[in-house]
């Protein structure tokens, strides 16, 4: 069988895309193309792609100005960090971009802001839409997010305080009490609507 990437050399390696533990796609390639594909796949500057998409891009490189284009790829086995600054982890849930890519699931809603820049190409492809923007309704209360958030975090803190006291963890309790006092000092946001 010929390589499904360059269509020239004999295929020696099979690449499988696995989703939900089921094999989605299988492609047979030669070792040379495999090296290129590997470099492409581990390029953290690019959104997560299916093998078919990667091969399409590698084929593009092979036909276009070969050498110069190839030079833009990270080194083979490219788990070594790429040149651009690493994307910081989400300050709220601590998830990193590569963790998200490995699992395909976000950790919290903040990730959508933190990784926004890397997200749009992915969302555009998944949802076959450009630009990747929401259409249609949102909850009527969406404008009050800040208010709700503040109340929630206060309730949260109070709950944690109670738990800390119950566990006789007075150090944590003192810290939580300070946080609660701090939050309560801030000017109250007026309730809108209702």
């Amino acid at each position, binding site marked *: 069988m010929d390589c499904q990437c360059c269509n020239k050399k004999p295929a020696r390696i099979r690449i499988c895309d696995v989703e939900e533990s089921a094999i989605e796609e299988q492609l047979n390639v030669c070792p040379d193309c495999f090296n290129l594909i590997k470099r492409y796949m581990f390029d953290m500057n690019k959104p997560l792609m299916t093998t078919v998409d990667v091969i399409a891009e590698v084929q593009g490189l092979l036909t276009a100005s070969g050498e110069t284009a190839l030079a833009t790829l990270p080194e083979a086995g490219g788990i070594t960090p790429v040149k651009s600054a690493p994307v910081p982890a989400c300050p709220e849930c601590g998830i990193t971009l590569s963790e998200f890519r490995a699992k395909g*699931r*976000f950790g919290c*809603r903040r990730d*959508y802001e933190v990784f926004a820049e890397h997200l749009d190409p992915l969302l555009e492809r*998944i949802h076959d839409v450009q630009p990747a*923007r*929401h*259409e*249609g309704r949102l909850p*009527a209360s969406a404008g009050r997010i800040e208010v709700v958030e503040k109340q929630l975090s206060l309730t949260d803190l109070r709950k944690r305080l109670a738990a800390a006291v119950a566990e006789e963890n007075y150090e944590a309790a003192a810290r939580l009490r300070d946080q609660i006092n701090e939050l309560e000092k801030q000017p109250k946001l007026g309730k809108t609507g209702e």
Partner: protein
Amino acid sequence: MSETTFEGFPHLLGEWLKGTGPDADVVISTRVRFARNVQGYPFTGRASEQQRSDVLKVCEDALKEIHLDRSVVNIELDKIEDRKREVLVERHLISRELANGEGPRGVTFGRGEMLSIMLNEEDHLRLQWIKSGFDVDRAYKALCKIDRALETVIPYATSDRYGYLTACPTNVGTGMRVSVMVHLPALTLKENIDYVFKAAQRMNHAVRGLYGEGTRAFGDMYQISNQTTLGRSEEQIVEAIKAIVPKILEFERQRRGQLYTEERSFVEDKVLRSLALMRSARRLNVQEMMSHLSMLRLGIDLGIINDVPMRTVNELFILGQPSHLQVNEGRDLPPAERDTLRADLVRSRLSAGTN
């Protein structure tokens, strides 16, 4: 709202199995679901045990506040046996993912089994409404009522840019999935199914097996659903499915007609052999049962079988599943024993004169 009233439930069957509603000759049911998350908590996959039980509490309180607690069954899934969770999966009330999940999680469903709310699945809330037949508008409207009531008491995680925020980027935006469960025996017999898959995919719709992603299409049952949730409004998603599904239904009906007019003895033989086998078999495995039930459904629609109601066939599809048999027996059964029980059930339901 906290009582676990599981006992007795496996004997009652949901509205969506009654075999009525628009296009019931091909469509079993229409389901609409919304994925929602509570602001202020990480998504379930990254939430601690404590955060998960807090989310559960927030949601349960909210359901009480919108007065959903009077006519619903509420089950804490981490506190019931495996086979009972499996029954809920077989009944399409919860996903396999939720059944196999961990930590505090639950389901609340209406007694007619049209409404079901999964708590702490991949998203904090998965609301779904199932209607018998092809009835997107009514399922959508019914579910909207619940969702719009809940949003006044639960602060949903949303953003202007991406809409309703979900754990998986494939659900973000509207968080809405419309799934239509269809029975396509003629397209399967005539080997046109691949064509349907590809055509649906080109229009951003997926065709999957009976129990969702990655499952096989037993009994020629398939689910057609929208693949994309971002950049299209809820109404657009509804309109798209209303444009695509009827085309598939027409295709199936045309092939059924063709089978009946051009290959009458072939289709009659298949249907009547299935009926005879099911009325005599002493052991039936689940796959066998489903493929013969599929032929029965086809036979009823083509008028080859007149003494079996559609509802009986639809119900057997569910009641003959492994965990339904086991829960009705009150214990785990080895496969051979299940096959015997399944054959007994099928024979008694299909015996002439009982319907």
